[in-house]
């Protein structure tokens, strides 16, 4: 069962896409707006850094803006967009690996992606646990992290998760089980404070 009831991006962008391809500037802007937030979240998942994710999201938006007219619709839009984001993240990671990774602190990475909350006390607690578990999540191997994110955070089914990553559904399921096992073992063994603080 998905953790969120987030509306499927495909449903939102399908009518916008047709209008944008027909030259409707307002539809194009709206579509880019919807994609921007989603692409940014994917980029955060891939890069683990808010600033890097901003740069990746910008790059993807530019590519999307340029190639909107040539998008044929053969692949599902979100699958295509996810691949573009993933490639951009990988390329970005390669470009900055040598000069930035060592320079950026763990704490800054985590605090930069903490969500806003209404109650200051709740915000402190939630951001602490969120940072803590996000740190554990970042320890997962890349493929397990992606599968866990798509299946257990975004709530995609095994078939769609596999399709988006271009892998077999059985392989996706295996990655998901490994990711859950690792993450939950760390939660239970390394961070007993998680339950008490919520």
């Amino acid at each position: 069962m998905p953790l969120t009831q987030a509306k499927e991006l495909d449903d939102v962008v399908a009518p916008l896409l047709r209008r944008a391809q027909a030259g409707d500037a307002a539809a194009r802007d709206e579509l880019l707006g919807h994609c921007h937030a989603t692409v940014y979240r994917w980029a955060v998942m891939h890069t683990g850094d808010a600033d890097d994710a901003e740069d990746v999201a910008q790059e993807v938006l530019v590519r999307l803006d340029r190639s909107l007219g040539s998008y044929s619709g053969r692949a599902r839009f979100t699958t295509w967009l996810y691949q573009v984001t993933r490639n951009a993240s990988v390329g970005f990671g390669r470009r900055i690996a040598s000069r930035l990774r060592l320079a950026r602190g763990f704490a800054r990475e985590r605090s930069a992606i903490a969500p806003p909350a209404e109650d200051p006390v709740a915000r402190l607690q939630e951001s602490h646990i969120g940072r803590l578990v996000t740190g554990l999540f970042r320890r997962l191997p890349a493929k397990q992290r992606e599968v866990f994110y798509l299946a257990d955070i975004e709530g995609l089914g095994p078939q769609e998760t596999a399709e988006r990553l271009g892998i077999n559904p059985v392989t996706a399921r295996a990655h998901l089980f490994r990711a859950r096992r690792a993450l939950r073992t760390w939660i239970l063994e390394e961070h007993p404070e998680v339950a008490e603080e919520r």
Partner: protein
Amino acid sequence: MITCAEARELLLQADRSELRGGSGSTLGLHLATCDHCRARAARILAAEQALADTLLGARPRHTAPEALRRASARPARRFPALRRAIPLAAAALLAGLLIVRRAGPPLPRALPAPAGDARNLTVAAPPGRSLALLNTANPDVVVVWFFPKEQP
């Protein structure tokens, strides 16, 4: 019925609906009767919800139009393919030079006509050089070897 150790193993891989105890699965039945394992499941659910809140709550600082403006304001990377090709070309050139240096002097451009047998050949050595004619296993191939004359 299963033991708590068995339930823990199942907890580590179970879908979230099972962790909530709502299903009639083996794990769900155990969670309904075991406070300890239910507390473990609750910890996992709380942690994963916090993770989801953090990841799904992440928002870009800029709107899409602002992001596009900022991206277009950056200096464009010119000739990216050329940038990638330059190190490759340099490496290929270096490798080529090393191979040429190891291979010794270049072969003559025009090979003499096959002689059949070295004993029937008349070959003059250039000044300061001696020569040797060597038959090979192939009767159509004779090796003519010029080498420096030994100094007395």
